């Protein structure tokens, strides 16, 4: 336990040094609050940007607060995934490339301790960033559009968080397989996007997949109810996360460092 805490603290220090604690929350907040604000000012933006003929009437239905929040989350699962992957890509591979993993492993530190503490560090900073960004978006949405209840907000946030855990685990797993950051970003982004696309096509067969969590979030926000596959979805996603962590530790052990 003590080993985990030490590496975790070292990782946090590294985040502070590389200003990650500044830019990651700000970027997630910007992506988040852009959504309600641009939706709110859409008529003015169209007015200013498009050279419409005189007298054109554009009627845009005002979206509900839930719709705006859902749009933000779908932004988070496109640009957001890329940011998460970029944030988590170097955590293992940089240590391998600089050779500092060897000097860590000389000490009585198991690969499990090493990996888990890095994983927790990534989870902490990414979930904090998304929490701040999503929270401020919720505030703006309630200000500018119809109210979304606190319960729906928290539930959608927690379920999205499971999806984020999955993304972090996949990225760090590729991080323990490959050395090059480009390969890590490419393969994790490709895998996660492919899973989301397959999930969109074979919706009936893919009820267990972590990408399906986005549908659960949608149902909570828009219809205010759980899909009946929620329990299956959560269990399978958590099991997959544990499996991926196990595989990553195993590959890390097998590798010649």
């Amino acid at each position: 336990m003590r080993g985990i805490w030490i590496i975790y603290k070292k990782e946090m220090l590294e985040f502070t040094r590389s200003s990650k604690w500044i830019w990651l929350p700000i970027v997630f907040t910007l992506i988040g609050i852009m959504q309600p604000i641009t939706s709110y000012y859409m008529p003015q933006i169209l007015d200013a940007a498009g050279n419409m003929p005189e007298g054109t009437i554009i009627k845009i239905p005002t979206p509900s607060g839930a719709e705006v929040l859902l749009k933000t989350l779908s932004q988070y699962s496109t640009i957001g995934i890329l940011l998460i992957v970029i944030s988590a890509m170097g955590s293992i591979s940089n240590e391998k490339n600089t050779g500092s993993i060897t000097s860590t492993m000389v000490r009585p530190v198991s690969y499990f301790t090493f990996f888990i503490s890095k994983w927790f560090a990534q989870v902490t900073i990414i979930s904090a960033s998304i929490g701040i960004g999503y929270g401020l978006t919720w505030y703006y949405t309630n200000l500018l559009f119809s109210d979304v209840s606190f319960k729906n907000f928290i539930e959608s946030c927690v379920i999205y968080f499971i999806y984020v855990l999955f993304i972090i685990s996949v990225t760090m797993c590729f991080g323990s397989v490959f050395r090059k950051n480009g390969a890590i970003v490419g393969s994790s982004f490709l895998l996660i996007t492919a899973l989301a696309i397959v999930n969109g096509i074979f919706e009936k067969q893919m009820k267990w997949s972590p990408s399906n969590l986005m549908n659960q979030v949608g149902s909570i926000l828009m219809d205010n109810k759980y899909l009946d596959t929620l329990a299956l979805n959560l269990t399978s996603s958590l099991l997959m996360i544990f499996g991926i962590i196990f595989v990553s530790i195993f590959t890390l052990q097998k590798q010649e460092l």
Partner: protein
Amino acid sequence: MAIDWNIIAPILVLQLILVVSALYSLFKQEETSGPKWVWLLIILLISTIGPIIYFIFGRKKY
């Protein structure tokens, strides 16, 4: 409907923080990957994305 600056202000403030912290980090850094003045231009001229690109790729690892 006039633009309400109270709503827009937070975005501008956040972007300012991003640029300032990127500049601070750039000047503190002894060596960046690639020439410093290019990073300076990127941070100042490309809004929002510029500082992020600097934070991700600009710092030398190790």
